[in-house]
């Protein structure tokens, strides 16, 4: 609730190297990923990443409206990242704001390289992302889940897309920033990768980092994406093993 405004904590990492939520510098928050949770969607996934709770549905390939939006040689990938009104400490007014419009675009660009869109010309593939609760890092969690929802929908893919953020907090490079670290830290660097191909499909940064710090952040993100990739694979196996 916004009316109980929290002050900025003095330290985000304590003398024992532990972060506010007790994690070590390079420790991910717990991630739970479930495939196929929705009945109507062609594919779906639900992710809990720390306190983030996000549900993703994929519809398509399907007919596109209005017709002139159709692309002659490939499917049009559309993404809608949206936060529930109650997902944030202060109520968020429903409807897209500038942040969510930008995130919708960068998430689309992060997923697109993994998809064989050329197999479905003139159709639409819609990825709907609903952030039910947010605690920092919703875009990387969304990409991680969306990639699985696309697989669940049977869209042919070059590779999965795994995503994670690194950042700089109290002068140190840390993995997987939470809300407070995002707000009061010095830099945030979300990255998405196709883990097998080791190709970056999303990279954004804000804050300040030297080139060395950047390279270090990049490295720990790559490692983390490998771990997240395992989580993704297990979730898919879980779904289809029955």
């Amino acid at each position: 609730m916004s009316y109980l405004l929290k002050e900025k904590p003095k330290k985000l990492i304590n003398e024992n190297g532990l972060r506010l939520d007790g994690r070590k510098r390079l420790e991910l928050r717990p991630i739970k990923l479930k495939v196929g949770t929705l009945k109507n969607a062609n594919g779906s996934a639900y992710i809990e990443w720390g306190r983030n709770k996000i549900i993703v549905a994929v519809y398509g390939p399907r007919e596109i409206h209005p017709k002139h939006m159709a692309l002659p040689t490939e499917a049009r990938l559309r993404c809608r990242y949206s936060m529930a009104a109650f997902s944030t400490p202060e109520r968020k007014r429903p409807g897209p704001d500038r942040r969510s419009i930008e995130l919708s675009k960068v998430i689309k660009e992060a997923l697109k390289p993994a998809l064989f869109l050329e197999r479905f010309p003139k159709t639409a593939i819609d990825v709907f992302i609903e952030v039910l609760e947010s605690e920092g890092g919703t875009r990387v969690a969304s990409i991680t889940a969306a990639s699985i929802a696309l697989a669940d929908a049977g869209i042919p893919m070059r590779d999965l897309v795994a995503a994670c953020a690194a950042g700089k907090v109290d002068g140190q490079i840390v993995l997987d920033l939470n809300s407070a670290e995002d707000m009061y830290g010095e830099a945030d660097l979300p990255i998405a990768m196709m883990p097998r191909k080791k190709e970056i499909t999303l990279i954004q940064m804000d804050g300040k980092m030297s080139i060395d710090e950047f390279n270090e952040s990049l490295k720990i993100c790559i490692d983390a994406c490998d771990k997240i990739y395992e989580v993704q694979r297990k979730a898919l196996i879980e779904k289809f093993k029955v």
Partner: protein
Amino acid sequence: MSEVVPPLQKNYIANLVKKGKRIDSRKLDEYREIKITPSFIGNAEGSALVELGGTKVLVGIKLEIGEPFKDTPDKGVLITNAELVPLASPEFEPGPPDENAIELARVVDRGIRESEALNLEKMVIKEGEHVWLTFIDIHILDHDGNLFDASTIGAVTALLTAKKPKAYMENGEVKIVDEWEPLPMEWIPASVTIGRINEKLMVDPNFEEENVLDAKICIVFDDGNKICAIQKVFGVLSIEQMKEAVKLSEKKSSEIRQMIMEAVKGEVEKHEKRKGKKQKNR
């Protein structure tokens, strides 16, 4: 209700109903399984995930401090909003709430407002100046029919389990303390949606059934045997069918109320005490 009714599907369902049967082998007056998960969202002051068969609805309560309406300076403000997000159904489209989303929000709101479930007079910090604004946000996640009942269950459960901090006036300013208390809930309204097909009534139509119904109506009861909201959503009903629907909904609403109370057990005791007092005064 989708706009074009597949006639074969309609005949099949209508014939089943004539024999008192349904496509998912329920009885005509039987609800699908209801699963209620209160306090699902940590950032919300109250919340509930409701699964009604294949329908999934998440309701969150957010509180803010703001001004009362000019014509009700002595009451808090209740705002109910429903989002039929395109994630939940191929029929839902992105964009501002359409007539179906608005009807849903307004019927849920009416059930809560008219039953006086949430005592808005106790949501005032300073009359005419500062009151609590209570936002009920209904988020449909999967649409398999009967959104009205699932949403009302979610909204009522979320309200019953919501907490607000204490607030008071000091030197003309609102002070908030980190002491949390439940919202002043007086009643547990429950909504019952009834479909008509082939001159028969059935409760809790699922998505396939909704598509072929001749009529759909939603009736909300407070927990003192009074009707507090009705909405005929589409179609026609004879006068006898209308009366029958009211009786049926009275009966089913107390079963649903029971489930809500089960789900919020911790809250039930307090509620029962409140209710005991109320009933005497009635």
